[in-house]
């Protein structure tokens, strides 16, 4: 199903005279990142024919770096899913584990790199949408610190949680793409200057030097994980130990509530963000007679798939009168608690390590019926978004022939440390 990796296969040539840092590179771009003149669907019928009149900041930066964009990658609808199966444009097979899902929501981006359809790729990560598919497809994915990469031109799902980030076959490849897209943008007021010294880059941190590295292993993130995944994880930790790193166990009691806090916040933000799709200015428009409320409701019935409707409705519920304090306010308390826990754990460790996903890739079609079970599979990735921290997923090995990813979490703007540590496993 290589043909389903891309929703739109179209070549966008980079600028310049061939001396940009990505002049020889082909890049797949997730289809929720705006490309001027090339349709950007978000994996949804709602935007099947939407052609952005402008480029996202990260796309302008790719073009300036001389990169060749080879297509718009498949994804779960509006980024809502962990399997790529909620896409209106069909599911994607996992090139590293045929018959299994590539993970999501940036499934097409990870699959493009794993299948050699692109050298590197851009995805977005609201609750694990870069790290999950990186782990499932056996490639490297980086979720940057909130504010390192501009979100201008990224179709919003959960603004307070999401970041655009890179995929690569190696840690160095992913880091080199991060070098191109990172940095402040006056069109995204949440962006910050990264604290890099003169002449430093993310890619040149890929030295594999982990001598003396202190790794904290949060015990809560191993509980309930698949046995083969846990075994592969400890093998990777042993590998890092053999190279001079040390590990100790740490406790993050707050992460027991991270999944519910994440989903309440993400769904609440989604219900607000996706209110813009009414068929008037862009997107699908129902052919119907009726007043504006009836017309909007029909447009949204036709344009959105089940998972998107589910999240819009649950978000609307969580924000509605009488429930706001019970769900949304409590979720914000949990978010602050998770941040405190990570700060504390990272005061005594350089990085925190866990399996990226507690399970190996699902079989295609296995898990669409039970949304709650799908949400619970995000247990190890969502805490990082709640804490605004950077994380990387790097291949750790296989269990029964299926890829397993190792997640490393670092302090805010500690991407160089993550690149250095993860490159020891390349």
């Amino acid at each position, binding site marked *: 199903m290589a043909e389903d990796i891309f929703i739109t296969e179209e070549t966008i040539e980079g600028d310049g005279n061939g001396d940009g840092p990505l002049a020889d590179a082909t890049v797949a771009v997730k289809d929720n990142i705006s490309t001027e003149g090339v349709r950007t669907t978000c994996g949804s019928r709602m935007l099947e024919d939407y052609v952005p009149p402008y480029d996202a900041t990260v796309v302008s930066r790719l073009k300036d770096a001389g990169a060749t964009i080879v297509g718009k990658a498949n994804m779960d609808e509006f980024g809502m899913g962990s399997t790529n199966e909620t896409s209106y444009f069909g599911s994607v097979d996992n090139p590293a584990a045929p018959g299994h899902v590539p993970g999501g929501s940036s499934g097409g981006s990870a699959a493009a790199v794993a299948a050699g359809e692109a050298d590197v790729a851009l995805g977005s990560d609201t609750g694990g949408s870069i790290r999950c598919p990186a782990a499932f497809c056996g490639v490297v994915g980086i979720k940057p610190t909130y504010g390192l990469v501009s979100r201008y031109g990224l179709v919003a799902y959960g603004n307070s949680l999401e970041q655009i980030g890179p995929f690569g076959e190696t840690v160095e490849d992913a880091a080199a793409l991060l070098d191109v897209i990172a940095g402040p943008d006056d069109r995204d007021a949440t962006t910050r200057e990264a604290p890099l010294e003169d002449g430093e880059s993310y890619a040149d941190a890929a030295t594999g030097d982990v001598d003396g590295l202190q790794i904290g292993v949060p015990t809560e993130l191993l509980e309930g994980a698949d046995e083969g995944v846990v075994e592969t994880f400890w093998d990777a930790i042993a590998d890092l130990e053999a190279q001079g790193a040390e590990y100790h166990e740490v406790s993050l009691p707050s992460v027991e509530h991270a999944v519910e806090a994440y989903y309440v916040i993400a769904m609440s933000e989604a*219900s607000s963000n996706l209110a813009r799709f009414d068929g008037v200015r862009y997107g699908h428009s129902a052919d119907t007679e009726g007043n504006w409320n009836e*017309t909007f409701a029909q447009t949204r019935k036709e344009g959105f798939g089940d998972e998107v*409707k589910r999240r819009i*409705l649950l978000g609307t519920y969580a924000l509605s009168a009488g429930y706001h304090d019970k769900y949304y306010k409590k979720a914000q308390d949990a978010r602050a608690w998770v941040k405190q826990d990570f700060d504390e754990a990272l005061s005594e460790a350089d990085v925190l390590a866990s399996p990226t996903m507690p399970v190996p890739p699902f079989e295609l079609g296995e898990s669409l019926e039970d949304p*709650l079970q799908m949400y619970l599979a995000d247990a190890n990735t969502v805490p990082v978004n709640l804490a605004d921290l950077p994380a990387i997923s790097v291949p750790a090995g296989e269990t029964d022939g299926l890829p397993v990813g190792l997640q490393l979490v670092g302090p805010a703007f500690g991407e160089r440390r993550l690149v250095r540590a993860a490159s020891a496993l390349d």
Partner: protein
Amino acid sequence: MSDDAVSPEEVRHVAELARVDLDDDEVDQFTRQFADILEYFETLDEVPEVDRDADLTNVMRPDEERDSLDREAALENASETEDGRFKGPNVS
């Protein structure tokens, strides 16, 4: 199932607020699934009150005119336009 599990009427009400028309079988399906999901969300009750001392500063820019999309580009994805404006459905 908790006492305040959602009813089909509540699902319909929320769908109306969110302007999403639902078929009857979707209402049934969502009512069942929301009961499970909301019951899980209830564990947030165990979260202690946390001092949220976010260290944030407002980011401002000078209030000056700057370029934006021209009208033609802004209208090119609209299903219906009239006299250089978006045209929406009747209000009532």
